């Protein structure tokens, strides 16, 4: 969204000069069409909000089908054309990157704000005034959110699990949240870096998806998972007391450069050429063996074969397990988790660069699927692996996305250690307080603040609507409760009426709502400022 904003005004100015024959209504209609397009996007994802939200099935041009509930994914797949609609897609992406969760909420809020802005425009309030009031309202909302938030201690596992559960509740895998939520919490806690206490690198949580079984069979491995097979050739598939080496050189015969050729002119040399190759590979393998290593992970190689038949044969004979095709991007992860140093040259194969683990084992995941499991790692860095199972590809992918969301939620908490009640409570609370504050303002701003407050109520409204409740009844009830000072009340979709969400353990991190309101307001402002499309 940020890059879109500065580009727009300049374009608008330039074209304004060129197209002097256009009538004055142009800017109004452009704004209107922008708002309508953006609202359409928001409407499209609205039904997927909340624990009772529905899924979308998206069939892409080449026939691939995605079934998802995740706002960012839906918008990403939808390939909208309208430029302002694209801004909303970007908005949801930004939320995905920043908070990881609440991607639907942010779009719904933006849509509601645009709707409000449209009404204000009709009333004759200048777009700039609306835009500026919205900004002030948003910053006021932040203060309100901050006030109603309760600090949280990261040691409180139980609470963290509840948080992850709230995030998982709207997904297909919600019935497995008892399993996935603690998994997400443990995973994030494991990778928590003491030196950087307010951020978590989610890249050090490796999720490996394997078809087969049901989601219940998913597990977090206290160790590493490698999505590869062992190379076989009689080599071991199970190594106890493993010494693991991560190598970045190839175990195959060196190729001469294209122009160079080895010329043989005598039959005795033929035998030597063969022998030389054997000897070369044998030396490499021996060097590996000498360092005490018994599991070799080989980085994927583009230039030449990572391993040749012959070297595999040697390694198998030496009882060394070989895993090849480790992606270049994963090298850092594995070296981190296994506690080993990547070795770029055979000369650097020293015992110190090896990681050690109690057991390295190839396990079958049904069908042809196999993964390599490393457990009991000594001196393991902050990294974990999660093996995700699912009965079909669609469920599996959705489980992956949901788990990612849950991980992000926990990460949000690490970033900002405050909690809010869920179920639309924060939005309602902000709406109520803003309405009160609005009275202190004068002029158009009062109108704008009220409109802003009304727009936020769309979140609880939609929650109720998606759950099959009467939205008007629920929202008015909720408003009453908040007016009476019950700030933690929200829509309880399970029971079907308004209750204290904290007691129901429906909680969410502050950062998600905080970001959602802030980013939605900013996005709406930049849309409002556009008065011409060229």
């Amino acid at each position, binding site marked *: 969204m940020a890059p879109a904003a500065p580009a727009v005004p300049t374009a608008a100015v330039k074209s304004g000069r060129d197209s002097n024959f256009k009538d004055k209504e142009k800017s109004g209609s452009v704004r209107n069409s922008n708002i*309508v*397009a953006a*609202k*359409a996007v928001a*409407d*499209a994802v609205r039904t*997927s909000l909340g624990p*009772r939200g*529905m*899924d*979308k*099935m*998206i*069939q*892409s*041009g*080449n026939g691939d089908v995605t*079934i998802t*509930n995740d706002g960012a994914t839906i918008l990403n*797949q*939808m*390939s*909208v*054309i*309208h430029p302002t609609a694209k801004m909303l897609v970007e908005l949801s992406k930004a939320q995905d990157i920043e908070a990881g969760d609440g991607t639907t909420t942010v779009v719904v809020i933006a849509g509601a704000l645009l709707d409000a802005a449209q009404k204000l425009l009709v009333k004759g309030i200048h777009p700039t005034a609306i835009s500026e009031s919205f900004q002030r309202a948003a910053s006021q909302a932040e203060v309100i959110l901050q006030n109603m938030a309760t600090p949280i201690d990261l040691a409180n596992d139980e609470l963290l699990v509840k948080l992850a559960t709230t995030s998982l509740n709207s997904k*297909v895998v919600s*019935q497995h949240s008892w399993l996935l939520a603690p998994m997400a919490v443990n995973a994030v806690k494991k990778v928590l870096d003491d030196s950087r206490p307010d951020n978590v690198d989610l890249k050090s949580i490796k999720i490996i998806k394997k078809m*087969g*079984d049901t989601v219940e069979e998913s597990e977090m491995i206290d160790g590493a998972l490698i999505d590869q097979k062992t190379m076989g*050739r*009689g080599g071991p598939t199970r190594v106890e007391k493993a010494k693991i080496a991560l190598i970045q050189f190839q175990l195959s*015969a060196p*190729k001469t450069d294209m122009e*160079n*050729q*080895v*010329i*043989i*002119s*005598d*039959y*005795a040399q*033929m*035998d030597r*050429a*063969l*022998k030389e*190759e*054997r000897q070369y590979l*044998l030396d490499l393998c021996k060097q590996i063996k000498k360092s005490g290593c018994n599991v070799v992970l080989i980085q994927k190689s583009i230039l030449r074969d990572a391993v040749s*038949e*012959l070297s595999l*044969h040697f390694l198998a*004979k030496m009882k060394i397990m070989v895993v090849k095709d480790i992606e270049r991007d994963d090298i850092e992860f594995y070296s981190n988790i296994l506690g080993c140093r990547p070795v770029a040259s055979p000369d650097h194969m020293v015992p110190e660069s090896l990681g050690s683990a109690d057991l390295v084992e190839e396990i079958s995941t*049904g069908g042809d699927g196999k993964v390599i499991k490393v457990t009991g790692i000594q001196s393991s860095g902050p990294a974990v692996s999660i093996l995700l199972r699912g*009965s*079909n590809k*669609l*469920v599996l992918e959705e489980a992956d996305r949901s788990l990612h969301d849950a991980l992000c939620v926990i990460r949000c908490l690490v970033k900002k250690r405050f909690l809010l009640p869920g179920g639309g409570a924060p939005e309602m609370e902000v709406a109520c307080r803003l309405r009160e504050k609005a009275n202190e303002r004068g002029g158009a701003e009062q109108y704008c603040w009220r409109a802003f407050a009304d727009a936020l109520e769309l979140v609880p409204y939609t929650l109720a609507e998606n*759950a099959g409740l009467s939205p008007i009844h629920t929202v008015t009830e909720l408003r009453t409760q908040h007016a009476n000072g019950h700030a933690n009340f929200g829509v309880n979709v399970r029971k079907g009426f308004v209750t204290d969400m904290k007691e129901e353990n429906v909680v969410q991190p502050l950062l998600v709502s905080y970001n959602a309101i802030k980013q939605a307001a900013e996005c709406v402002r930049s849309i409002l400022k556009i008065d011409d499309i060229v």
Partner: protein
Amino acid sequence: MAGAAESILALTGKRTTGQSIRSQNVTAAVAIANIVKSSLGPVGLDKMLVDDVGDVIITNDGATILKQLEVEHPAGKVLVELAQLQDEEVGDGTTSVVIVAAELLKLADELVKNKLHPTTVINGYRLACKESVKYLNENLSFPVEELGRQSLVNAAKTSMSSKIIGPDSDFFSEMVVEATELVKVTDSATGKITYPIKAINVLKAHGKSARESMLIKGYALNCTVACQGMPLHIKDAKIACLDFSLQKAKMHLGISVVVEDPAKLEAIRREEFDIVKRRIEKILAAGANVILTSGGIDDLCLKMFTEAGAMAVRRCKKADLKRIAKATGATLTCSLANLEGEETFEASQLGHADEVAQERISDDELILIRGPKSRTASSIILRGANDTMLDEMERSVHDSLCVVRRVLESGRLVAGGGAVEAALNVYLEAFATTLSSREQLAVAEFAQALLVIPKTLSSNAARDATDLVAKLRAFHHKAQQNNKLAHLKWAGLDLENGEVRDNKECGVLEPAMSKVKSIKFATEAAITILRIDDLIKLDKEEPRGGDECGM
């Protein structure tokens, strides 16, 4: 609203929302189920599938039928995947899982049309699924030991009964059970017993009748000896399994042979041959008299083997070699190189078998390895009148093998013939009345959906479905009401006579695991489809269009 949004949203595609998409998905799913419906059960009929090249498949197996169909609709694809999943996980019950899933969807759609929110239906289904799996495990299954080996045979027979080999099920079920028992593997580390049925090599040979199929206690290899002069029969065989070619040595890329003197040419040629000759000598010196290789063997090398009186087989499949190596205790060798940089072949790398022989079966010749030393192995040679029939027999045998393995591994059985479904139906209906929320309706519909199995079974058998199912339910109601009549819970359909009988007694058995998984999978698939309220179909991307909508 939807129509307006569509135009404003300016998608490069079509969007359908709300009830219409739900109905559309359900219709697609039901259409898929209708295709396979008539193939369910012992008296189910087969389908003939002709693909665009003209290949014909005649089958009764749900997964195979669906795999061949080119399903366009995304919801239909979910069902096809479901059948394939069941096929991979259990191997049997692929038709029933699709039928149940479609029925669940159909009834859910009705509920939604009657203004029950889809999420309520989903919750109800989940609850019902959990309850039924619990009830099935606690009350409707029994351990294999209760009936002994006969139960294995019966389970295999039940699985075959619907297939083309149904009439010969006595014969085949014995064969299948024996074959499975022969490949039993005990993991030395964990003590876990597994039955890798992939290790059972099923070969098809044209000719004779199905009853002439045979089980070989050993390994049947679909290859012939490389040269006529070789012995066709070797007793006390020492087998070398090689994973490289015995051909004239070729130099690597980047090494070129430049000969200036014509006299040297001959020397180089000889050397090329000598390199491989030395290898063969090493293998023969180790005592090998049967050489199996995945690569090729040169004519020159064949001569050496013939002279030594050894049997050499080329171009064996690698998977076959791996299994043979395991069974005979040989090491699959991919290079002769040893750790000193030289080439050697040791006697310890050889496998042993009582007998290796090439035998003629119909037009083809097969190599049979009998009595492997380190582990028992089994192969099945199927005989049949034509190819399509043989293919179907292979699929049927595969299904039965899966069933037997599941029974052996999980050790629990349930009665077949719609017994489980009827019992669960009666139980869930009683359970539904204990719920006071809206989920009650969904649970009751779940119960109703399960009845589709006995209903389809009886209508496929040209019996009065309503009548039979009512009788069946009455039996199960009695069994669940009255503890003294608990034995009635094994009541299932007898489709030949159109009666209800005790299916446990009559040996119509299925592995419990298959039933549990099929209920779970069907529910999961139905829920996946039910949760969808929006379908966005994007147009095919223009070939390298200018804008960046390609995602």
